[in-house]
């Protein structure tokens, strides 16, 4: 099963403050362990929301664009991992060990990624084949 682990933002991450050398080192070690265990598929940090934008859809009008920063700090995403594990419980055990050297993270959310089986009959054989072709093409962009 694949899970997306979402690190929520904090005042520190939103301020654009760079993490301490110690935390960068600890995080590097933790990620290495994830890689060695064959668990880590991806992991990245996001720049503060001041560098981002939102596209809002509604009704028939053209979508509107709103530039960051966005106010609701605790709901924003600051970074993520994609993990391959056997269960939610296993993901929880890994996430409990995310280094928190700076005492800056407050909340991490774990969400299962939908796989082909989750789409049931709506994913027709043709669409499934298209999906597999897409995967192959995306692997080239990695």
């Amino acid at each position: 099963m694949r899970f997306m682990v979402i690190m929520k933002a904090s005042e520190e991450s939103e301020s654009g403050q760079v993490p301490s050398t110690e935390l960068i080192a600890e995080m590097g070690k933790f990620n290495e362990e994830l890689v060695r265990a064959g668990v880590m598929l991806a992991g990245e940090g996001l720049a503060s929301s001041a560098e981002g934008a939102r596209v809002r859809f509604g009704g028939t009008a053209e979508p509107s664009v709103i530039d960051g920063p966005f106010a609701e700090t605790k709901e924003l995403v600051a970074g993520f991992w994609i993990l391959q594990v056997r269960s939610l419980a296993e993901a929880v055990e890994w996430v409990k060990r995310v280094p928190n050297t700076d005492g800056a993270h407050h909340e991490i959310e774990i969400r299962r990624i939908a796989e082909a089986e989750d789409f049931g009959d709506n994913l027709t054989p043709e669409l499934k084949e298209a999906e597999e072709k897409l995967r192959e093409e995306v692997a080239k962009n990695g």
Partner: protein
Amino acid sequence: MKFMVLVKASVESEAGAAPKPELVEQMDRFNEQLAASGHLVETAGLTRSAEGARLRWFDGLAEPEVVDGPFAETKELVAGVWILRGESVAEIVGLMKQAPNPDRQAGTIEIRPMVESR
């Protein structure tokens, strides 16, 4: 540069309903275009928050607290992501304005540049 594009949840996505074939098909075509143009790195749809969990850290506590989903604030939840390669936020905004929305549902997509470390 790489960007994370976050699709916010809706009542429908949180209900766990499988997307309509029409949307799946249009999304597939959209993703194919993003792949062909070299933008698409990864795309993932998340299952509803009822299948998820949160860990919360509190000052003075060694162990985080674990809370099982579902989570109430639907509009703040993430329903899916794209990871895209591009030159600027404006370029990604332009691409995302064309994201399929066959039922013309109200919703928000957030675009965030990733921190480059290498």
